[in-house]
């Protein structure tokens, strides 16, 4: 029987912020853990347990090395969503006596926003920092927001939609000065850009396996052990694994995969980010060179090498995606969902709803090639031109009509 054809056989993958293909070297490393080294890492009485624990410890060290932490500071979770929940709710609960104030930003992932909202509904106070046109928070505003009741600042390292890198080092320094814990959701950053918890003053950091060519269903929360020793209330009660911070039998296979993925990232990041950044720039230059009224969303300077988020004026995002059906990307238009609200991240940047509906997010990754980028650029340019030909907005703009002055029949 021939293997079933999958998307991978005929669709170019440029959605590496959603997830990444697992590196075959990661899979190789994981394979023995399914059938051979299958022990429970918490089994203290026999060799099966010991060898599983040894693999887990090796993985801890590999992850720690990538982010300049210690192995004992790694708490395994099911992924970044859980890590974010554990960090935010865990710190809030533990430090309830000290204060009830948290600070985050409006462009955070839902896995940070929603735990904060829940805390808000339970009586905590949350400051939601805005971002500027570039997608960056204002450090002075952050400094002004910190009060003696502030217990946690949670600001992401790299944004999942626009790839914008927040000034993590400066935030870390500020938090240190003011004696406030600093959590960063570094899901998109780890393995893509250098992250150093010591140099950046990070106290808690979320990361995920499948965003850096590791497996899904595994993530970690870095929890600082010295200066200061961060304490948090566990959100999952049980056998007291992970030093009581996260109960549940360790996902040894996933852990081994995450460890290997981090190891590969550490060895190859410099070279890879240069290559991936080059491909991203190639894509950007081709598109901007061929089409007018194309806007890059978010800072180009402070940005992940693989990210490109662009709006094509007068063309709706979903119809664009339909025209490039053999390319996997994602759109900031929410026309597919029940609500007609476009991306809240783009909105926060001040991008108008009509341009937000026209946006596409490209995520270039480890396995993309120059040929793929050229193909995608050419195809996309053709589709944008074709859709503009049938766009009443483009026609009106060419006639010199100011679209913002038109009274639209809202529905």
């Amino acid at each position, binding site marked *: 029987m021939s293997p079933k054809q999958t998307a991978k056989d005929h669709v170019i993958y440029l959605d590496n912020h959603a997830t990444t293909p697992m590196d075959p070297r990661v899979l190789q490393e994981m394979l023995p853990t399914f059938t051979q080294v299958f022990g429970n890492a918490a089994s203290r009485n026999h060799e099966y347990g010991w060898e599983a624990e040894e693999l887990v410890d090796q993985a801890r060290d590999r992850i720690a090395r990538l982010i300049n932490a210690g192995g004992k500071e790694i708490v395994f979770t099911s992924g970044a969503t859980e890590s974010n929940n554990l960090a935010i709710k865990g710190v809030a609960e533990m430090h309830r006596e000290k204060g009830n104030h948290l600070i985050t930003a409006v462009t955070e992932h839902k896995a940070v926003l929603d735990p904060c909202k829940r805390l808000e509904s339970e009586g905590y106070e949350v400051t939601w920092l805005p971002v500027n046109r570039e997608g960056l928070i204002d450090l002075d505003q952050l400094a002004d927001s910190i009060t003696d009741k502030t217990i946690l600042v949670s600001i992401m390292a790299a944004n999942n939609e626009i790839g914008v890198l927040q000034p993590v080092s400066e935030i870390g320094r500020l938090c240190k000065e003011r004696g406030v814990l600093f959590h960063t959701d570094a899901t998109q950053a780890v393995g893509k850009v250098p992250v150093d918890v010591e140099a950046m003053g990070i106290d808690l950091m979320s990361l995920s396996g499948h965003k850096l060519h590791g497996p899904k269903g595994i993530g970690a929360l870095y929890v600082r052990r010295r200066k200061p020793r961060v304490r948090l209330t566990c959100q999952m009660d049980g056998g007291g694994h992970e030093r009581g911070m996260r109960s549940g039998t360790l996902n040894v296979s996933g852990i081994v995969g995450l460890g290997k993925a981090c190891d590969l990232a550490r060895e190859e990041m410099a070279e890879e980010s240069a290559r991936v950044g080059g491909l991203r720039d190639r894509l950007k230059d081709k598109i901007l060179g061929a089409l007018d009224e194309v806007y890059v969303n978010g800072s180009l300077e402070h940005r992940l090498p693989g990210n490109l988020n662009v709006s094509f004026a007068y063309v709706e995002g*979903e*119809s664009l995606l*339909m025209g490039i059906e053999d390319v996997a990307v994602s759109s900031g238009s929410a026309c597919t969902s029940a609500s007609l609200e476009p991306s809240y991240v783009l909105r926060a940047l001040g991008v108008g*709803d*009509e341009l937000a509906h026209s946006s596409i997010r490209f995520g270039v990754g480890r396995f993309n090639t120059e040929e793929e980028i050229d193909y995608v650029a050419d195809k996309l340019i053709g589709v944008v031109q074709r859709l503009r030909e049938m766009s009443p*907005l483009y026609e009106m703009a060419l006639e010199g009509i100011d679209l913002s002055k038109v009274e639209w029949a809202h*529905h």
Partner: protein
Amino acid sequence: MAYSDKIIDHYNHPRNVGSLDKNDPNVGTGIVGAPECGDVMKLQVRVNPETGVIEDAKFKTFGCGSAIASSSLATEMLKGMSVDEAVQIKNMRIVEELSLPPIKIHCSVLAEDAIKSAIADYKKKQTDAEQASVGEPAVATA
């Protein structure tokens, strides 16, 4: 989301894309939707004033594939129809014809609105012209 073959066909080969002269008294133009909602449809009909039959229909649409397909299909249906028949078109006919999924039904509603709006514009032009010809003295031929 998987699209029906008909939607894909209309998206790839849209019928009657283009514009008619909006100043022509026999042309009715409807523009509905809003850019910030993610869809705007412009639908135009040219009516034979003698017979009341729609002789040509054109559209331009900013919107998702279903919106493009809905308006493309609408122009196909309109050609050869009388103005009175055209205003009777219900969005469900477009939904059925294209097998639109539930979350895309608003696209068909927008197409129905565009048809109604274009016909209304045509009728208004006709009434205005009649009133103008009644109200003004006949131009003397020199």
